[in-house]
């Protein structure tokens, strides 16, 4: 039982690190995309560069892509469950 708790603890820790790294990476690419979009030619009606980027980032934080990073937790647990099933059930 202690072993199981330890496994969950370490898995949670490791996956959290992966989650943060992916979240930072994804945010960084999104910001870069917005900057390049502005630099290529500001869209009409947009006030200034910073406001444009901040608005884009706020939209990103609510986007599906941002939420898909939660798969970092879901996929490994699912895979482990599938492996346990197929290895142990005849």
């Amino acid at each position: 039982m202690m072993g199981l708790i330890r496994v969950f603890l370490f898995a949670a820790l490791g996956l959290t690190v992966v989650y943060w790294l992916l979240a930072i990476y994804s945010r960084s690419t999104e910001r870069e995309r917005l900057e390049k979009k502005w630099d290529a030619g500001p869209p009409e009606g947009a006030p200034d560069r910073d406001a444009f980027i901040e608005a884009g980032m706020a939209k990103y934080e609510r986007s599906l892509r941002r939420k898909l990073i939660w798969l970092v937790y879901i996929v490994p647990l699912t895979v482990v469950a599938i492996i346990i099933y197929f290895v142990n059930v005849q």
Partner: protein
Amino acid sequence: MWRYIKWGFRITVVLAVFLFLHYTLPQHSIVRVTGTFNRLTTVGANSMFYASPDAGTAEGTLTRDIRFIETVRANDKVIVFRNEDTGLIWPPYFKYDSSNLQAEAGNLRSDKANPQWVSVTHYGWRVPFLSIYPNAVAVKAVAGPDVRIIPWVNIVVLTFLAIAALMVRRMWLQFRERMLDPVAQDVAEAWDEVEDRGEAVAGRARGIWGRFIDWLGTFRGKPRR
């Protein structure tokens, strides 16, 4: 010299990764099961290649009953597998059904006259010198000794690892481009500034010092500049 060290290091890393994957990833052997038995085994210095003590079949002792499966390949060479639970983390086979596997293997036993070919999925190595055995994970009856088995698990795992490695590389490059390079640029600019200021100070110092030297020079009759 340095080049040899660098290449030696690279080759060692690649070799270690290869050996690690070769040990851990599943392989299939087409064999005939000739015997299944338990043997009291003392696990010592080679315990790294046996089930960890928290696994169901190990239970924390160095001397334990380990299940073995004796098999013969089509070329009459033998392979002996051990059959142990894998424990909680590594290797991640999550195998808890060693007893069932032993029963299945016993059920598939056959002799040379009436062969029943079996595909044994296993990981690990047989090294007689170290007394280590590959761990059987699953057995499945197959039609003959020549059936082709597509290693789907290996394909999926290696593809995933390759994608993960590329992803790590991309993340590092992104981090360098967005975080390190701007800082390095700032540092370079700051350094230029420091150098400029340093030169200015040096120039001023040269002024005071130079005037002092000139003044000293006047004692020896040199004219002031």
